[in-house]
């Protein structure tokens, strides 16, 4: 434990330095050295607000789109990008996430509802008056941190904009629209607040304090909305004639919510299956708030009812599927199977019913996964342009920023994605992303140069000696035919997905991203695969140490796999 703590301190210090060097530096260059005028000439432009234009030019000046068309003048100071063979889309929007907002620090003591994961454990709430699991004053905009590695990951994946909010609890905080580039945290904020997300989260049962049940959560939220409007009314009456009147009590939850509602923040209601969706209609009516639903994966059953209620839906792109490593004897019900089968058809159903909807990445690990998931909904009947609209203009409309974002139109913020083909085609590469007029060239993760020699797939036991001492972890690798690797690693630091990796001839490399105290960091495993074992180096931050890997079930399977792959 003690050595663990020491490493954390060391890494935190290293990390700070690391980010100063690596992150601020390029941004400074982007601000100072890079041009502020661009022209992408002769590209296919998909403005979303109108039909695509072939051979068009888009002009960007000082962060804004200042021209779009076939024969428009290119300012002499502009850097010209040859758009031949390229397609220009509006920057994609992840309509509900916490990208850009690292997890809150653990609250130090205090009352219940301190926020973060331990919100219930600090002294249990005895009722609504203790405001359990509520931190509606937390502002996504104020908690932006440039150290969040996902800002870059998401941007490189074509997402220039996110609707981001603090996580955890019943009233976790307020969401803001963020552009994913900037020198200072404030540079990212486009609009705040735009939404008040709700989480129907219980204290986890008996002994955990109020509310311990779903009906307790709902009752609590009812009471909070009533209290909020009461406090506004009471305060107004009191201010008129404070003398000889007992003053209404101040409550931080009420004050924050009242202010956010005054700013027309949308109330985001969780609702994924039909029961929850139908319940959400009633909740939105009862609360008399401008609501939107998030989840929406069983909308294929109730889309017309959602349309009748005129509620927008933010659809979770993490489609339901069988969880890995579940008990094979545990047979899912027919209803569950149907849900897994039909969930990706929900966007098509919403589109058909005329519901305004956007997409959010849910628990997906990478922006590429999000695009793949969106493609699934196209395969399940959604028109490709409707899918694109959900990822751009519709999201902007739902969060009331369509006057500045979401399409390629003169005067809007210059958030663009430049690709070498159709966005939803798997082989398409993102060449360049513009955020607020700043250009970011994208270098796709390294691809294997040579065909893989052998099959590296399977579970590997990795042994190494970190500064903390000897450690072991398990890598569960899956290799495509061309050598591309995916999978997970798990060990005492938790389980992480592999961001990118390959086996080229007998050289392998794969990278995960783990959170070291204070921020995320890439960890790259690279070395040689001899058919039965792995040998190489782990590099993280400024550290590098050797590791070896063997299959837990040793020789036999490796040789069989080897044969099979050839």
């Amino acid at each position: 434990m003690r050595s663990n703590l020491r490493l954390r301190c060391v890494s935190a210090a290293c990390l700070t330095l690391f980010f100063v060097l690596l992150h601020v530096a390029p941004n400074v260059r982007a601000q100072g050295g890079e041009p502020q005028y661009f022209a992408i000439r002769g590209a296919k432009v998909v403005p979303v607000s109108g039909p695509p234009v072939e051979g068009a030019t888009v002009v960007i000046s000082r962060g804004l789109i200042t021209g779009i068309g076939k024969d428009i003048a290119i300012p002499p100071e502009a850097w010209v990008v040859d758009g031949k063979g390229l397609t220009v889309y509006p920057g994609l929007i992840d309509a509900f996430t916490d990208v850009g907002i690292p997890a809150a620090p653990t609250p130090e003591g205090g009352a219940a509802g301190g926020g973060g994961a331990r919100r219930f454990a600090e002294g249990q709430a005895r009722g609504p008056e203790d405001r359990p699991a509520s931190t509606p004053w937390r502002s996504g905009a104020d908690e932006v941190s440039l150290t969040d590695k996902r800002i870059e990951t998401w941007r490189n994946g074509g997402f220039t904009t996110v609707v981001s909010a603090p996580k955890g609890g019943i009233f976790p905080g307020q969401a803001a629209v963020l552009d994913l580039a900037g020198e200072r945290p404030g540079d990212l904020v486009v609009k705040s607040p735009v939404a008040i997300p709700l989480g129907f989260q219980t204290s986890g049962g008996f002994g955990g304090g109020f509310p311990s049940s779903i009906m307790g959560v709902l009752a609590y939220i009812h009471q909070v909305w009533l209290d909020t409007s009461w406090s506004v009314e009471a305060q107004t009456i009191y201010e008129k004639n404070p003398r000889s009147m007992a003053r209404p009590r101040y409550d931080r939850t009420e004050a924050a919510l009242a202010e956010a509602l005054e700013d027309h923040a949308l109330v985001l209601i969780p609702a994924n299956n039909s029961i929850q969706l139908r319940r959400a209609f009633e909740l939105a009516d009862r609360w008399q708030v401008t609501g939107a639903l998030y989840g929406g994966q069983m909308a294929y059953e109730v889309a017309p009812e959602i349309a009748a209620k005129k509620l927008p839906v933010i659809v979770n792109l993490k489609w339901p599927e069988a969880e890995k490593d579940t008990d094979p004897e545990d047979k899912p019900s027919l209803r569950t199977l149907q849900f897994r089968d039909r969930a990706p058809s929900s966007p098509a159903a919403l589109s058909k019913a005329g519901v305004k909807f956007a997409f959010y990445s849910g628990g997906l690990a990478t922006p590429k996964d999000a695009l793949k998931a969106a493609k699934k909904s196209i395969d399940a009947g959604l028109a490709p342009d409707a899918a694109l609209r959900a990822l751009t203009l519709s999201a902007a409309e739902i969060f009331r920023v369509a006057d500045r974002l979401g399409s390629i139109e003169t005067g809007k913020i210059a958030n663009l994605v430049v690709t070498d083909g159709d966005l939803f085609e798997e082989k398409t590469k993102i060449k360049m992303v513009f955020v607020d007029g700043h250009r970011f060239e994208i270098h796709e993760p390294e691809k294997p140069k040579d065909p893989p020699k052998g099959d590296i797939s399977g579970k590997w036991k990795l042994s190494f000696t970190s500064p903390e001492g000897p450690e072991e972890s398990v890598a569960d690798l899956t290799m495509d035919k061309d050598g591309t690797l995916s999978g997970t690693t798990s060990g005492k630091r938790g389980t992480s997905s592999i961001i990118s990796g390959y086996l080229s001839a007998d050289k392998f490399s794969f990278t995960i991203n783990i959170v070291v105290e204070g921020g995320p960091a890439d960890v790259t495993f690279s070395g040689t695969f001899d058919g039965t074992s792995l040998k190489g180096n782990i590099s993280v931050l400024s550290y590098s140490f050797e590791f070896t890997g063997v299959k837990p079930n040793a020789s036999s399977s490796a040789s069989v796999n080897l044969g099979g792959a050839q």
Partner: protein
Amino acid sequence: VRTLSKFAARRARALLQNALCALCLTAFAIPLHAAPPDAPSAIVIQNATILTVSHGNIEHGSILIKDGKIAEVGQSVKAPKDAQVIDAAGQFVMPGIIDCHSHIAIEAVNEGSISVSSIVNMEEVLNPEDIDIYRDVAGGVTSANVLHGSANAIGGQTLVIKLRWGQPASKLPFEGALPGIKFALGENPKRSNFSFPGQPRRYPTTRMGVEETIRAAFSEARDYEKAWLDYNKRSAAGEKNLIPPRRDLRLEPLVEVMEGKRYVHAHCYREDEILMLLRVAKEFGFKVRTFQHILEGYKVADELAADGVGASTFSDWWAYKVEAYDAIPYNAAVMTRRGVIVSINSDDAEEATHLNQEAAKTMKYGGMTHDEALKMVTLNPAIQLGIDKRVGTIDVGKDADIVIYNHDPLSAYAVVQKTMIDGRIYFDRQQDIAARPEREKEKKALTDKLKKAGEKKEERKPGEKKPEEKKPEEKKPEEKKPEEKKPEDKPKPPQAIADDAADALPGGAL
């Protein structure tokens, strides 16, 4: 030591159950819901032995159902030509069973964190996809009193539902039935404060404390009511700049109780706590509508009868905890003979599938007549829930909530053939059996398809074009049938473990 370890085991199970419940919320571990069957505008059930419950039995009788209501009952009826005919020769027809104590069709049972949880409302967490709805319909139940658990001296708001399987949650509530609230006396509200390490114990821990908790809550509610009356009076008198009282969702249902707009259903066992609540109710000017479980009701039957309080009890189920030791199977009969309206309830989804047999036991223990026994699960619970104008007997004008059995329902051989609610057939044994292979086929096809898709995903090269995928299949909703229903299964033996677990659940259903 034995007691301790048993207690630990129970607690572990209880925790596990809680965890499982939490899972249910998110994991959609729910079977499919069937599309509600369409009801023909007129149905005739003929050649049946009709057990009207209100006016005797009719041999070879007929019932005409029009637009969901019973239009005619008798030896013969004038049926329109297009009426659907159900020939029930040799079969028995009785009013749909009403379960006066149920915890089906809800996503959670207890808000156990506080001693007064009147702020929560079971209606908000109705789960129309709970398979237990269908199982209970298959056992002849057509209406149920859906109650909050008994973890709290004053529990959550409750409601009466009809078991309209396949309909959305908004269609389940029994229209016009007065809402209720759950109270609980005795061990559950006082022992629900399992002490977890480092956490304070919840008040109360004695029966005295339970009484005080109820009394304190009603005192608050009385003040709250008064604050509003004052405010309304002053504001009607033209006074300006008044700050209205803050609405309190915890106290509002208690005000409704005092105003007679909400029924109190009080979980109890012992005579002393029963008399205690009657005293508290008098003090605050409200009526207890039913005492639930009330295993010692036979000791205070006269007091119950004098106060016009209903009793809803078990047939012969006791000794699962100390306060449930002093019970006798004659309880229902003794209370009935003393003038109490008595019903037999389930408190359990499985028990609810054979309430007819539970009612029959009152004939053996206490000598109830055939009709009196039937009333225990039909008319009497209807009276207790204030829905007897609509259901509970087979009479002209009442809702066509009807069950058809192959034998006398009070026989151990009786199996439900059809269950009808509002004139719609929600369970048909033959159709159910016939539809099973089709459902199995669909399940297998989907399993294979999803498995294949999963494998493809792993095999496919990144650059490779995705193979053509089928368009989402259009499934006719009427083909959907609940997947798990096995009415022909042997009746389960009393579930020692399950019952035990329910009992151990802090403030569990019992």
